[in-house]
């Protein structure tokens, strides 16, 4: 009993956080140590010059994609905010759509016998315009737009709560009683305030852009490859020259992602200064609401088309160009997947469930014990910030390096740990919001009735917050289920998630099987989130 009391001690959360901090610090320290050692024996400047085409294409593509994502997200947020908030629940479904399945779906649109080519063939016959994504100019454009549209649901979801916090309705009224247009309220006041508050989500999408592998490999240009692809290539390569290049690539990724952050935050500052002083929009009556509506329609249509075309490809037996839909059907892709990958699929569900639940329980424990301790929340914020802002490929290379150096735990433990640290920040941010929204008076009332802290948690807080807890579990589960680089970098293929297998299927198996795998990948997280939404809506009624 005394041992239990000791465990539920005020200092335990602090110890857990410092332990996590210590490991992250060791990982980052290990990366820098390796870099310094390698750079003393290899010239970084030569590598930098040789890689300039890849550097410039990676930097430009990711910069443009982040800028596009921010602008599209802003217009969509403006539209959705004016509609009822229930309409924004579709965003969670879009967010839960796996990146790899999305990328594969996009290639099905632009392939030489893809959907666009089939549609163009109706009008142009054999003289169809160039639609394939293999051309570099078009590949860059497709990469920028696809990555931007993939990031939009995440930005909009956070953007909506920011929109609420900046009193946008009151600002709009305030500007209109000064005699200025609605566009002026939006561009002179709401956009600068919104942009200013969106720092962290923007940082997260910059870090993702510079560390993603699936977008760069499937949709990015091939001549030259993007840096993100080169890192994985040299990580796996048995060629000594390529292996030695890895450290230069890590430095380049850190440099260009930091440079992109500087450019984007400078641009943000300049934009805010310009917008708050310009009088350009004061008398212009232009309805951006409609633009947001069309963008929402475009976004939803894109995801539905991707889903449908992947579904058709998974069940077609003969779908010859240029027919728009398949003629005969087969389930051999699905049966092949079930026969060969059921175990990996169920294992991935189990791993994701256990890690998400552990993260949820640990975070609830930390927050419950340290509710009035702002210092702990600040440390948690810093820890989550470091994990999310550090490009994931580099962090995982650091974990792998530390794993080799320490050699104290098995590869599985490092694999689970590397999954856990990417669930941890999301759990923290959502949990913090849930606790902020909870009315503390319920607990105060319980306390004055003499009810213990533990009892009031299980009998009052948990039943009132159960829908939020379920949502946090759903989002954590989908984030974990779609992790990908851990299997490539930390375990070098020894331990994989189902998501990894989908990419392998895409490059090796028949199109039926690859498409069936791609859709199967979406089913667990998709069903879970739909169930959570139906349940929470029913609870609200």
């Amino acid at each position, binding site marked *: 009993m005394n041992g239990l009391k000791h465990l539920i001690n005020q200092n335990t959360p602090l110890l857990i956080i410092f332990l996590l901090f210590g490991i992250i610090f060791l990982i980052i320290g290990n990366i820098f140590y390796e870099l310094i050692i390698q750079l003393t024996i290899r010239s970084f400047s030569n590598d930098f010059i040789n890689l300039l085409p890849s550097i410039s294409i990676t930097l430009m593509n990711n910069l443009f994609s982040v800028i596009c994502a921010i602008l599209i997200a802003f217009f969509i947020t403006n539209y959705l905010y004016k509609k009822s908030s229930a309409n924004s629940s579709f965003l969670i479904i879009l967010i839960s759509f796996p990146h790899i399945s999305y990328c594969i779906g996009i290639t099905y649109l632009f392939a030489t016998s893809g959907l666009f080519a089939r549609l163009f063939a109706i009008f142009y016959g054999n003289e169809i315009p160039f639609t394939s994504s293999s051309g570099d100019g078009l590949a860059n454009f497709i990469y920028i737009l696809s990555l931007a549209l993939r990031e939009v649901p995440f930005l909009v979801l956070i953007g909506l709560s920011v929109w609420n916090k900046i009193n946008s309705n009151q600002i709009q009224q305030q500007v209109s*009683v000064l005699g*200025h247009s609605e566009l002026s309220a939006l561009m002179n006041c709401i956009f600068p305030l919104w942009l200013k508050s969106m720092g962290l989500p923007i940082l997260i999408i910059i870090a993702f852009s510079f560390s993603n592998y699936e977008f760069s490999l499937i949709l990015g240009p091939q001549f030259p490859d993007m840096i993100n692809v080169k890192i994985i290539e040299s990580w796996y390569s048995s060629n000594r020259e390529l292996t030695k290049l890895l450290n230069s690539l890590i430095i380049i990724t850190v440099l260009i992602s930091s440079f992109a952050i500087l450019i984007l935050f400078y641009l943000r500052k300049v934009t805010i200064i310009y917008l*708050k002083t310009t009088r350009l929009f004061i008398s212009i009556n232009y309805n951006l609401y409609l633009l947001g509506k069309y963008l929402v329609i475009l976004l939803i249509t894109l995801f539905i088309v991707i889903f449908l075309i992947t579904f058709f490809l998974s069940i077609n037996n003969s779908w010859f160009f240029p027919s728009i839909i398949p003629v005969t059907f087969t389930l051999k892709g699905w049966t092949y997947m079930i026969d060969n990958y059921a175990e990996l699929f169920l294992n991935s569900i189990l791993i994701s469930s256990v890690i998400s639940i552990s993260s949820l329980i640990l975070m609830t424990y930390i927050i419950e014990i340290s509710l009035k301790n702002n210092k702990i929340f600040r440390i948690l914020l810093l820890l989550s910030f470091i994990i999310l802002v550090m490009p994931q490929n580099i962090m995982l290379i650091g974990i792998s390096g530390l794993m080799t150096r320490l050699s104290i735990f098995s590869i599985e433990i490092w694999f689970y740990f590397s999954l856990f640290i990417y669930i941890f920040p999301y759990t923290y941010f959502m949990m913090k919001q849930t606790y902020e929204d909870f009315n503390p008076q319920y607990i105060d009332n319980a306390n004055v009735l003499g009810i213990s802290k533990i009892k009031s948690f299980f009998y009052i807080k948990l039943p009132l917050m159960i829908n939020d807890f379920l949502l946090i579990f759903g989002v954590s589960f989908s984030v974990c289920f779609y992790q990908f680089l851990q299997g490539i970098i930390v375990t070098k293929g020894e331990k994989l998630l189902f998501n990894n297998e989908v990419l392998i299927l895409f490059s090796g198996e028949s199109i039926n099987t690859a498409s069936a795998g791609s859709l199967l990948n979406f089913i667990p997280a998709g069903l879970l989130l739909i169930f959570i939404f139906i349940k929470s809506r029913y609870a609200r009624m």
Partner: protein
Amino acid sequence: MLECNNINIQNEKNDYLIENQTFRILQSEIFTLTGASGVGKSTLLKYICGIKQESFTYSGEIIVYKNIVSHLPTNKRGVRMIFQNDLLFPHMNVIENLLFAAPPYRKNIKDEALSLLNKLNLSHLSFKNVTMLSGGEYSRICLARIMINEPKVLLVDEPFSNLDKNTKNITRDFFYKNISAMNCATLIVSHDMEDIYSHDKVIKL
């Protein structure tokens, strides 16, 4: 000149919040709208300037300087308003708030804005972040922002309700002195008899 004819505002249950209100305020006149809490003073003010709440139904005619404006959006009615919880734009400092509020046709207004702040003895706040202002300073800057906008019709919704007694007295004198100087048709909402500017010009709800 502001003219309101047969204004009716009904709630969801079709009960009248405002029934058949008619009044006229000429240029330079300051009227006070009084009444108990919840009788619809703020709702009426918002309706006059074009901010409609979905839960109410409205009818009646609003005329601003001989133009019927009832069908126009807020920014085209020529009616300006200071809200009960007026909002200075938090990403702009004091002078930027003033410059933004100036009418679109005005050019090079920075000197004018600075001299207005000087005239109002607020020049020390010119470049201050608006989140750093005290309650009284905040209210006075809200008035300065409306003044630079050159309103012809001004509606003011309980501007002193959030202030302590001392600050309220100072701010009230400041408001009335400067609103009189603006020569616009003004309607001020208040439930406090102390706030009434002229006892001849009171509309009671």
